[in-house]
């Protein structure tokens, strides 16, 4: 048992090439994959947790678990789905924990709104975002996940099912209910 454990240590106790052996992809491939996925995953984590600092931590954790998982991926879409599944599980873990004092996600978009040339009225844009955040908070965690993946991420039903660990056949109905609820909540605040 010790020999096995020490051989694992030996394998990792070297240069970057050793680390490559412990992960499911090499550093070059990871950089490409990370650059394509980090921002969408961060946005998902930030919206689902409501805490940008926590999203930073969860982002690191998500990629670590992704790298350590020995899973054969057919293509990048499969890798992305798998990453979102990890992120979803992390968010679920966070929801189960007692909530500590967190930075508000409402602080994040204001700076972004100011830099957005398409936003004619910064105050209005911020207000709309607060309305959306409040409406999202009134949905169940699963409804939030579904709606984000479907309408923010643009994922297909198959991809949503893979990311959330649900049956594809149930996505249509779940999404319909979630969408109807959110639309009603947004109409209440004159969207």
């Amino acid at each position, binding site marked *: 048992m*010790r020999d096995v454990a020490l051989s694992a240590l030996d394998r990792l106790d070297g240069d970057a090439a050793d*680390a490559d052996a412990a*992960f499911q992809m090499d550093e070059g491939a990871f950089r490409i994959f990370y650059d394509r996925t980090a921002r969408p995953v961060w946005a998902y984590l930030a919206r689902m947790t409501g805490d940008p600092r926590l999203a930073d931590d969860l982002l690191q954790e998500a990629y670590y678990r992704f790298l350590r998982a020995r899973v054969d991926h057919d293509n990048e879409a499969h890798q992305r789905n798998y990453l979102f599944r990890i992120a979803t599980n992390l968010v679920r873990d966070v929801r189960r924990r007692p909530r500590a004092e967190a930075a508000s996600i409402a602080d*994040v978009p204001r700076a972004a709104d100011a830099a*957005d040339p398409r936003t004619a009225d910064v105050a209005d844009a911020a207000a709309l975002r607060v309305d959306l955040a409040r409406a999202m908070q009134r949905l169940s965690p699963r409804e939030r996940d579904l709606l984000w993946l479907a309408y*923010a991420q643009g994922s297909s039903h198959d991809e949503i099912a893979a990311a959330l660990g649900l049956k594809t056949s149930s996505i249509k109905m779940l999404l319909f209910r979630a*969408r*109807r609820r959110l639309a009603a909540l947004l109409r209440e605040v004159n*969207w």
Partner: protein
Amino acid sequence: MIDCPREADVFEAVAFGRWPAQAPRELQAHVAGCPVCRDVAVVAPAMQGDRRQLMRAAEPPTAAIVWWRATIRARAEAAHTAMRPMTMWQAVAGTCVAAVAAAIVAGVWRAGIAGAAAADLLARLAISRAPAPLAGFGVEQAMLVLAGVVACIVLAPVALYFALADE
């Protein structure tokens, strides 16, 4: 009706920034009469706008930093895994040492009692030839041994718990 074949068209128009101004009139007319697409036309722009803003605000660490942290953590976990059996054997050895020490103490104590009992026996024999009160000695000895065994049984898991507590 829980879905609509035009739902994807509405979402595409939203995602590419064509909704509502640059969307075909026919699609706009459809949305006006379709409850499913009407909901999509409310929800999708809100979610897309939110995502756009969040992604613009996102400042994730570089891939190099995330990779480096992951490498460090993987090494630390491997080291921890390698140390784990050593820690367990150290705990077992510690428990054995404690048991031996307890046995020695019990032996010394027993020898003291036996010596005292023998001296008492000789004195009684010399004086009155009456039988020595040795009947209770065997029970007392057995109680001591039993106490030692119980102590070891209790100590071993406690020692293991503290040795492996950080895991």
